């Protein structure tokens, strides 16, 4: 009797499914198209250097010799450094806002962290050159001689370099990680915390339980920040020193993939040079893909292990066991 209405509803459902499905397919096609186009336009360089592009260190536009290793190194070094600096702070902000903050302060704090995300990166870059770099230089100069002999602090105190880049990236990454982590913590069911308190947990232990419950989402937040750090261009270019030489030192001027693209693309005057720059884009694309896949894998494996743990001990979240 409701067959007619049901059929139109069902065909509406089908249309909706096909429509949204098409959008999802378009997304996949765009990613494939980017990969294809980057490969096609860097063919000259791929054919000439092959895998050596990934492992050699000389970047000499005059001689037509291109190796991307210093840029890959600089990109990963600066992003991991930024992640290491930003994650504890971002998580601290998220926990404070979602768990501990007095109601009156919550909205202003949320607003302020989100404001940080809205600042254009060129502004960060100029602030970096005129404020952060002189500060970093004075810190570097004040470093005791005994520490300066360590490879990680070697080299003259220039101010520009890996440390300045890592610091500026950390500031830029914090709002992203903390916003997502805050939302994730907000979505932890109240029963989790209540359960922890009921078992006699202290406030700290209850928060730890909530963090544990939300851990996949928090890893997602951290990886979002990492992705942002990998691709950040202008601010890093202005403070990293742009020197394509691999060094373990935080003080050494280095280079990132995004920075060399921003710096050299406009003036690349030979085909091979242009192809090599586009291949840098391809390398960045592949590395971003790998990083994202790894973080997905991590989240999947954690989700799987937690679901088996839940089956084994359904009533007790593991972190509050000792408290109970």
């Amino acid at each position, binding site marked *: 009797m409701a067959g007619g209405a049901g059929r139109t509803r069902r065909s509406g459902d089908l249309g909706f499914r096909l429509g949204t499905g098409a959008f999802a397919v378009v997304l996949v096609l765009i990613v494939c198209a980017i990969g294809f186009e980057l490969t096609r336009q860097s063919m000259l360089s791929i054919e000439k250097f092959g895998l050596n592009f990934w492992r050699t260190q*000389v*970047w*000499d*536009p*005059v*001689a037509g010799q291109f190796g991307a290793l210093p840029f890959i190194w600089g990109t990963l070094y600066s992003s991991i450094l930024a992640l290491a600096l930003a994650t504890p702070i971002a998580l601290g902000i998220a926990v404070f806002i979602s768990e501990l903050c007095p109601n009156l302060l919550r909205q202003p704090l949320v607003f302020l962290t989100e404001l940080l995300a809205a600042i254009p990166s060129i502004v960060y870059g100029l602030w970096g*050159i*005129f404020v952060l*770099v*002189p500060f970093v*230089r004075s810190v570097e100069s004040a470093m005791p001689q005994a520490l300066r002999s360590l490879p990680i602090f070697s080299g*003259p105190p*220039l*101010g*520009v*370099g890996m440390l300045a880049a890592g610091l500026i990236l950390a500031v830029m990454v914090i709002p992203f990680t903390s916003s997502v982590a805050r939302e994730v913590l907000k979505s932890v069911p109240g029963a989790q915390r209540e359960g922890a308190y009921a078992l006699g947990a202290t406030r700290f232990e209850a928060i730890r339980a909530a963090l544990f419950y939300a851990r996949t989402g928090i890893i997602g937040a951290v990886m979002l920040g990492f992705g942002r750090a990998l691709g950040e261009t202008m601010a890093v*270019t*202005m403070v990293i*020193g*742009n*020197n*394509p030489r691999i060094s373990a030192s935080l003080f050494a*001027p280095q280079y990132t993939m995004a*920075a060399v693209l*921003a*710096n*050299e*693309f*406009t*003036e*690349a*005057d*030979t085909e091979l040079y*242009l192809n090599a720059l586009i291949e840098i884009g391809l390398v960045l694309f592949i590395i971003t893909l790998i990083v994202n896949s790894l973080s997905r894998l991590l989240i999947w494996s954690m989700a799987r292990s937690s679901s088996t743990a839940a089956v084994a001990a359904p009533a007790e979240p593991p972190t509050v066991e000792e408290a109970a």
Partner: protein
Amino acid sequence: MSARKLLAIAGCAVALGAGASAQTVLINGAGATFPYPIYSKWFSEYNKVHPTVQINYQSIGSGGGIRQVTNQTVFFGATDGPMTNDQLIAAPGKILHFPTVLGAVVPVYNIPGVTAELKFTGPVLVDIFMGKLTKWNDPEIARLNPGVSLPVADITVVHRSDGSGTTYIWVDYLSKVSDAWKAKVGVATAVNWPSGVGGKGNEGVAGLVQQTPGAIGYVELIYALQNKINYGSVQNLAGEFVRASVPSVTAAAAAAAGKMPADFRVSITNADGKGVYPISSFTWLLLYESPKDKAQSKTMVDFVKWALTDGQKFCAELGYAPLPEPVVKLELAALAKIKIS
């Protein structure tokens, strides 16, 4: 129905656009950033005299200008370094070079306790940028600057990190005074620097130099003048120490005018002559000898004629050096070769 309405509106817009373009000539160009201030001044001044001519210029860099003019996506290009033979062969038609104005590149430095204007020679600049001279009180530098008390400070070299015509002029000069530089580093808009840190743009280099005690870098003369940055003088082939200025840069072009090749692709760094500032260069417009659109061609030739003659008076206020008279004469003769009908 609303879609039909939209179409009708679009149709009207197209018709209006066509009507307008029948009267005005619109020309697109792209290229070097260095001459952008004087070019945009010229385009707006020329538009005041010839309201039907509108010239659009995108300052995307010399490399981009060469690429776009080769692909014929713009009518004219502009570059700080002349096109190479390979690049000219790759273009679909014959491309001519026209020098428009001159610029210079100057050494800037920040040495604690030194306010005097320092003197440099080509070989000393090469040694500093090679990373061979590492202290400011090195006898090589002290010998050139008697009476200046140079500190025992480390030298930090600052260069451009972005590809740039400024870098091209600087390393072109260094490779003319040093075979070692020519062999090891070479000449291009971006090179594999033996030492130092890279700053983005003139402002990046100037910023790093001003902040870093013991730093030395290079910026365009215009940039140093506009921002009142102190810079050193450089010894020319005649043995004089010359400070870059509008007259000393024009003198470099005048010295080169006698040996000007027919296609104007000439480097005037380290030019021979009295009063010549040795790190000077032309900047060029790139035009096809026989463009497809003859109406645009005629308009462009008229404009270039104006720029080379009346337009030169705007140079000095913007810090560019005007072309010397003999070069303008040669160019006007070459301009007549462009097909306008």
